[in-house]
């Protein structure tokens, strides 16, 4: 589940969610716009079905369209989420299969191949980090990934996000220099605070051509996003902020290159 999907209020809509990771192309001093140049394989490593669409849906679609194989290594089935559809159609035991099917549909839209690790939602931070890192390192090796996207360790709000990011950078560190991919991280939270602390994102991807597909992929995660899209249609400041946030999410995606 994403912060945006959980968002109820204007404050949250302003401070978190896709806009917080996307930045605003117009405001960036010198947008460092990356295309899918000469990549062997893009591996996206995040914990929940829908994280891929919120955090990097445009970037995934861009690479896929350019012929770069893209794999989404998804840590959990999102099986401990509380959103069960609006109106609800799932329960605790059926949510796992519901979300896996939604993930497969979203990945078809974006053009990536899903691989599910089968961890339990909410428990990633309690797993042995070395075991997790070894599994992720194996995936990087077997895919021959030269670009990895994951959450920024310690700056991704949700404990599963932070733990997945941490395990991923640990995996990358364990690889030989020849095997080591570039890592782009996704930070979540107040954009100005993140920029002040981490410096502005050094990778800004113009995803305008893929914005519609990103939204379609988000819609495919219906159990988690139907309420979000319904709120966008409402009147008032909250809906206004949400619409602005989603518009930015369809414009740019911003990452920070992790120094391994």
């Amino acid at each position, binding site marked *: *589940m994403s912060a945006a999907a959980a968002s109820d209020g204007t404050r949250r809509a302003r401070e*978190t969610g896709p806009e917080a990771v996307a930045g605003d192309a117009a405001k960036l001093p010198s947008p460092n716009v990356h295309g899918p140049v000469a990549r062997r394989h893009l591996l996206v490593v995040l914990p929940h079905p829908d994280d891929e669409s919120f955090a990097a849906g445009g970037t995934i679609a861009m690479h896929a369209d350019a012929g770069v194989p893209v794999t989404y290594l998804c840590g959990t089935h999102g099986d401990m989420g509380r*959103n*069960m559809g609006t109106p*609800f159609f799932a*329960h*605790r035991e059926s949510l796992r299969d519901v979300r896996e099917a939604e993930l497969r549909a979203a990945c078809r839209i974006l053009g990536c191949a899903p691989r599910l690790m*089968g961890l339990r939602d909410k428990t990633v931070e309690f797993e042995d980090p070395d075991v997790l890192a070894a599994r992720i390192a194996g995936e990087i090796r077997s895919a021959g990934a030269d670009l990895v996207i994951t959450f920024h360790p310690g700056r991704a*709000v949700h404990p599963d996000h932070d733990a997945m990011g941490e395990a991923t950078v640990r995996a990358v560190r364990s690889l030989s220099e020849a095997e080591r991919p570039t890592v782009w991280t996704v930070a979540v939270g107040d954009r100005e605070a993140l920029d002040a602390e981490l410096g502005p994102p050094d990778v800004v991807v113009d995803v305008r051509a893929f914005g519609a597909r990103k939204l379609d992929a988000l819609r495919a995660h219906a159990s988690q996003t139907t309420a979000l899209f319904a709120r966008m249609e409402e009147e008032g400041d909250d809906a206004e902020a949400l619409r602005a946030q989603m518009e930015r999410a369809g414009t740019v995606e911003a990452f920070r290159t992790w120094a391994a």
Partner: protein
Amino acid sequence: MDEIDPERLQRALDARAERELHLHLETTTGTYSAMGPDRVPACIAFARNVRVRYLRGAVRGTGPYRVGLKTDGGWVYGDGLTHATETDDGALLMAGYDERGRLRMAFQLSERPFREGAA
């Protein structure tokens, strides 16, 4: 899931008394609760596939409902249950949903372990 029919739920609880069961008990505010307009800190707990055997189980209230299971030496308790269903493989799933259809509580009993892991 169906809205709880207390008589039907009582029969389902009676049928499972004095049997070796697996329990999934959970309450959740959602992980992002603290980021909500009311900034309520997250309050989430779950226990999954805990072995339990109860002597007596009862549903009480007028909805949302309470369920209590008296075990040999202790209790399992839940308040806020709105829906229930029995699955094809014999599990009894009880749940509390809020007015927007979000899960607040899950209280589940099954002879077979609840699904876990990559399979």
